[in-house]
């Protein structure tokens, strides 16, 4: 599904975010990405969605080399990815339902077609009753869940979740994790970045651990502890 071959990311200002990272995620896997703040979790996810480009190395997505993917093809790659961002990235001048519908609308669904799907996922994240709200009227946790709904509405091949439970309380975090678990059962590949070790411990999966840009562990969660 996703393969990194000796990938390094050096930002323009000279910060080395990732160094010589190699790993492979198979289709349908559920993988945690953890490490301290600044370890490079976000950077790694951004390379997969080509929000940033790798400086050195090669990245494959479904056996296809995306390291030098052309600007023209990026949208079609991103449509196969459901990305949940550390800061929600919602459109403030559109309602919750309109935000969630966006991935469908860009695929040329009609508004009626998309509304059914939107209501279904809003039910899943427990925000059905707020579909007409604007994001600024929501709490940070609710905004986070709108972002999750948007990421899963179009049934992507892979979900990249960057601290999806960052602003949620324990109960809600577990709900979200259950939701990912369900998607994973349905065959969706999930990569979730989180520094919340206690949360990950409740549902152990394969875990990648980053430390200052180095991949220091790749294996079962239990053994890493």
């Amino acid at each position, binding site marked *: 599904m996703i393969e990194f071959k000796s990938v390094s990311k050096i930002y323009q200002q000279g910060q080395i975010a990732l160094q010589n990272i190699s790993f492979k995620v198979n289709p349908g896997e559920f993988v945690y990405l953890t490490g301290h703040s600044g370890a490079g979790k976000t950077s790694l996810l951004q390379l997969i969605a080509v*929000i940033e480009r790798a400086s050195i190395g090669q990245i494959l997505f479904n056996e296809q080399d995306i390291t030098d993917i052309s600007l023209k093809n990026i949208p079609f790659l991103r449509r196969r990815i459901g990305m949940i961002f550390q800061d929600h990235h919602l459109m403030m001048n559109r309602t919750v339902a309109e935000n969630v519908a966006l991935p469908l609308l860009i695929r040329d669904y009609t508004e009626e077609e998309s509304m059914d799907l939107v209501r279904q996922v809003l039910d899943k994240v427990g925000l059905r009753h707020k579909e007409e709200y604007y994001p600024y009227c929501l709490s940070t946790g609710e905004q986070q869940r709108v972002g999750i709904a948007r990421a899963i509405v179009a049934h992507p091949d892979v979900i990249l979740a960057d601290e999806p439970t960052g602003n949620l309380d324990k109960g809600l975090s577990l709900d979200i994790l259950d939701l990912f678990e369900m998607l994973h059962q349905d065959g969706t590949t999930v990569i979730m970045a989180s520094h919340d070790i206690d949360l990950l411990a409740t549902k152990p999966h394969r875990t990648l651990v980053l430390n200052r840009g180095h991949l220091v562990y790749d294996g079962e969660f239990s053994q890493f502890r």
Partner: protein
Amino acid sequence: MRSLIGFIRRNVRDIHYVYNTLVSVNFTGTLLAIAVIALTLTIPSIFYVFMQNFKESTSDLTIGRNITIYLKNDVDSVVAFQIKDDLQSDDRIKSAELITKDDGLKSFASSMGISEHEVMGNAENPLPHAVVLIPSEEVEASTENLDLLVKEIKNNKYVEMVRVDRDWFKRINSITDAMRYITAVIAAILLLSLVFTLINTVSNRVLLHRNEIEVMKLVGATDLYIIRPYVYLGMWLGFLGCFVSWWLGTIVIFSTERYLNHVAEAYGTHIIFRGLNFRELLMMFVMSTVMCMLVSFISARSSINGIRPQ
């Protein structure tokens, strides 16, 4: 078929959406853009209408637009008739009239108020035969063509002298040429300002929606999808600008009509003004709309390229 209907319905809805979110917001900016478009269209269209009407109203005016050909003295009337007929069959000549030496003498005498006999006595009539030509519109519209025609006639061995009364159309031609030139310059300047205003309007609105565009890019919207609303914005501006220009032009044209007719009467003519016809109007609308869409497309495309999601 279903998808086509869906496509059209979606576009109609989007156009409506764009009207609400892009055209009706930032009202002064929108108004400015519409005003510039309207002005850019009005000046050339007014000139076009003036030219069109001017041509029509002067086409039946024959005073002073003729070419007089004096044949050599030894040319007899049979040859003179032949020459007149030859000239008449030329496309470049609207009409030709032979004035024989006797006719010439008669009219000279009558203008003096005496009989022919009293003028010349028993002496031979010294006047040559003459042919008066009225050139066709195409020829009289261009100095080169007229000169060419005159030169050809001069080369005829029976022709003694050619006199062209061209003051009238020389003057008109130089006035219309100057007007055409000035209009072209003004139109070019306005067109340039239109392009800049439109680019500015569109890129401002792209920046205003920067956050939204970033999100769209992140969820996999193609550039074309992101650009579409701005192309519709251009469409709206082009259409509304043209609409304003249509009315502006109509007002200017008809208020000038009265004044110009006052002047025209002195030349013994009357100008009946005709605005743009349906085809010309349609063309103006299509041109304005398409051009504004195109400029918006290019402008939006380049502004959107600068937006990279973080």
